[in-house]
């Protein structure tokens, strides 16, 4: 018994078979279980091919495309500053503390009433002292002659400074930059 060609079966499944040929194919299928099975199988494969999940690009793709096709306008120098506003603010804060501490005699002498800024400056100096002592101790494997345990106040201030710096970085990353992006 002659069977249908695979080509005929695929054209029948796709609905692209010519009308005259279609009648012959239908007549053959009525009497041939083998070809009917092949038709069912090809129908199933076609269905699964259509239903196969699509590959989805990352969420940022369209943003990147739009950034490419709509380049930002305006002065590039100004944009650079605006984009780095968070870092610039952080640098200004640190430099201000440093300049204030160095340029204020009462702070240098240590007889001024403690303020937030002077406390922060002390924190920095204490922190760097500690780091330097630790490195000296560890690298030379010598007993530290001058290492005094940091006072509990100093520890608190160090912790506070680190937390403040982290908060500043977080502010830059999650607030300032997002505000800039949305603009």
């Amino acid at each position, binding site marked *: 018994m002659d069977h249908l060609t695979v080509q005929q079966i695929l054209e029948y499944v796709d609905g692209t078979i010519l009308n005259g040929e279609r009648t012959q194919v239908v007549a053959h299928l009525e009497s041939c279980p083998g070809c009917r099975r092949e038709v069912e199988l090809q129908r199933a494969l076609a269905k699964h091919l259509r239903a196969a999940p699509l590959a989805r690009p990352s969420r940022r793709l369209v943003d990147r495309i739009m950034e490419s*096709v709509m380049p930002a306008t305006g002065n590039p120098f100004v944009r650079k500053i605006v984009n780095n506003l968070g870092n610039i603010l952080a640098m200004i804060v640190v430099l201000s503390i440093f300049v204030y501490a160095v340029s204020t005699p009462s702070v240098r002498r240590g007889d001024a009433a403690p303020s937030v800024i002077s406390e922060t400056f002390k924190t920095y100096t204490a922190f760097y002292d500690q780091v330097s002592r630790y490195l000296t101790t560890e690298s030379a494997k010598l007993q530290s002659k001058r290492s005094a345990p940091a006072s509990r106040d100093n520890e608190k201030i160090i912790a506070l400074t680190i937390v403040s710096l982290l908060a500043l970085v977080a502010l830059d990353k999650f607030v300032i930059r997002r505000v800039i992006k949305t603009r």
Partner: protein
Amino acid sequence: MAKPDQEIIRRVLAGEKKAFADLANRHKDKAMTLAVRMLKNREDAEEALQDAFVRAFHALPRFEWKASFSTWFYRIVFNVCATALSKKDEAYEVSLQDGDEGGIEVPSDDLTPDVEYESTELQKIVTEEIEKMPDVYASVLTLFFVQEMSYEEIEAVTGFPLGTVKVRLFRARMMLRETIARRLGWRKEVVA
């Protein structure tokens, strides 16, 4: 009534460049599917897709309104992917005897399935096997079944002659069928 794609294109060409994002959102998943199946790598595919969209944006003023946007755009995607493949020193053209059409094959010594055709297992295997398929076959198969293009549209997208499109589509389907039969352990049986 104008097609949605064409309405968006009109807006973009009228100066509303942001509308291009709508066009990208409409086509990104299907285009990504074509790119992944050709390049076999998500990162390369996404890079190719971004390149294709940017090229399409700049070429939009030259878009011919008589053609559908999808045919025009997928031709760009296809060309970008083919170029990426050639840059990777992978011969885009696989060895094919295109004249050896399978139209005269007869399912005499055939494979009979023991499994449920509707099974999710079969769906999973089909998906996996398309991704492994050589790019020339995977591309025509994707354009035919995912983008639902006709042979003529596939010819326009790929630049393959119509006969080659038909042969490659046929071979891709046969290849898929045989691989699935092997994986599912369908028994060989002479069709009565």
